[in-house]
């Protein structure tokens, strides 16, 4: 594992411990892989988004206004 990879694993181990989630080394290896892949994908997605889309308060997809029952947070 690279130093960066080890750093990420340590960070994730610490976060899981803080949240009270038991994880052994095998669990950790898989979780680190999942999280790293999604973070990399998110970074690519953000780079592909033009501008800075505004997130409406209480965003709930999609329920067009007028057709929707009150939503949580709206």
């Amino acid at each position, binding site marked *: 594992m690279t130093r960066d990879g080890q750093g990420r694993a340590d960070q994730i181990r610490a976060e899981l411990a803080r949240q009270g989630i038991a994880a052994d080394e095998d669990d950790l290896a898989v979780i680190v892989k*999942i999280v790293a892949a999604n973070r990399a994908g998110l970074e690519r997605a953000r780079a592909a988004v033009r501008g800075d889309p505004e997130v409406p308060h209480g*965003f709930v997809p999609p329920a067009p206004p007028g057709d929707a029952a009150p939503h949580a947070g709206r």
Partner: protein
Amino acid sequence: MDCDLAYGSLIRLGRLLDQRQVSPVDIVRALLERINQYNGRLASYITVCGDAALEEARAAEQEITRAGHRRGRLHGLPIAHKDVSLTRGVRTTAHSRCLLDSVPDRDATYVRRLRDAGMILLGKTNTTEFACGTMDLFGVHRNPWDLGRYAGGSSGGSANALAAGLAVAATGSDTGGSIRVPASFCGVVGLKPTYGRVSRNGLLPLSWSMDHVGPMARTTADCALLLNGMAGHDPADPTSASAPVPDFADGLDAGIRGMVLGIPRQHFYEGLDPEVDAALRGALRELESLGARLEPVDLPLAAHIVAPGGILIMAEAFGLHAARLRERGREYGTRTRRRIASGACYTSGEYEEAVRVRVAWTHQVGAALGRVDAIVTPTLPQPAFPVETQLGEPPDTSWGTRHFNMSGHPALTVPCGFTSAGLPVGMQLAGRYFDEASLFRIAHAYEQATPWHTRRPALAAAAA
């Protein structure tokens, strides 16, 4: 005759019930016989309601005979619910050790609505654990077209039961493709409705903003009938919409002449298995020959949706499971535990970033659907893969489906061909909010012009 009943469409079986040519008991018996014969190999059902289903069927038979008519088009017909649906008095396990003895005292809203419409609960179908992970208690749902292959997840029990004639109607849930993926792999029809169209009250949740419940069947018309029974506002679900519910079976035969279908320029037609590509190209030609006009549409973010969607799903799943994961983590299957635990590791900033991508993507889909009646894509880039692949490191099957969980638009898969190895290929149609009717219309027109939905797997030989 029994096999004929087990493979009957809801519409045809309903007609036979109306004409008193068969009774609900005949239909349930035919299905139970096949379940008894094939469930061991297919792992379609976690719980089979044998005696209870027969009792319900007898009651329906009496009611129909006594009243002289059926309550509606679903009365007296059996349904299988995915085992993440609360069913009063019938255990609901979500394929998890944590819920092995869990017997709910109430029905999910959609279960109750279908029950009120007169449907008979046949059983609870197999799913990956909590619709996202392991399958180590009740077996891996296998593909009836090749028992060495995976049926797709997570509503794989519903899909393979339909394809194998072990159910005539089913429900599924779909957080990233879990209705459409197994429906495509197994060669049946599955709809993820618009977010808010079907109440999720009583669905064991995975992700509050991505979960959907929808119908699965062997034909589009049957899916439309089922959605009639499931849809509508429910005060018990705060995300349930009050949009009017049309009769989705109306207008199915209107044809598609003059409709405009969007073909994405990005992502969806890239890197396809050659046989999937050929099936889709053939389907597009067929849609054109039926009078639809194809128009390219731009969806530049399409290649970037799976990861942000994964963050949203797992962060929300962790929120829902955190307490149980702390207390009973070792009772979860390994894959489920790891996936859900991964959701603990994202920051609120990352969650918010994923929501921003979601908003931008939703705008892109909305803009495209402003110009076309529906978007047409492959449901998956490849046909069903071997069970061993699923048990090892499976490919991400939400490649083309999670997109519409992110945006909330309705999306349906319909069979559009077979590979040379005899594996089904699915075509996905995505439409405007609350316009499931157009998707049904397109899929039905396509279905009427093609033979795919009439094929049956050679199960007896394969299971021997």
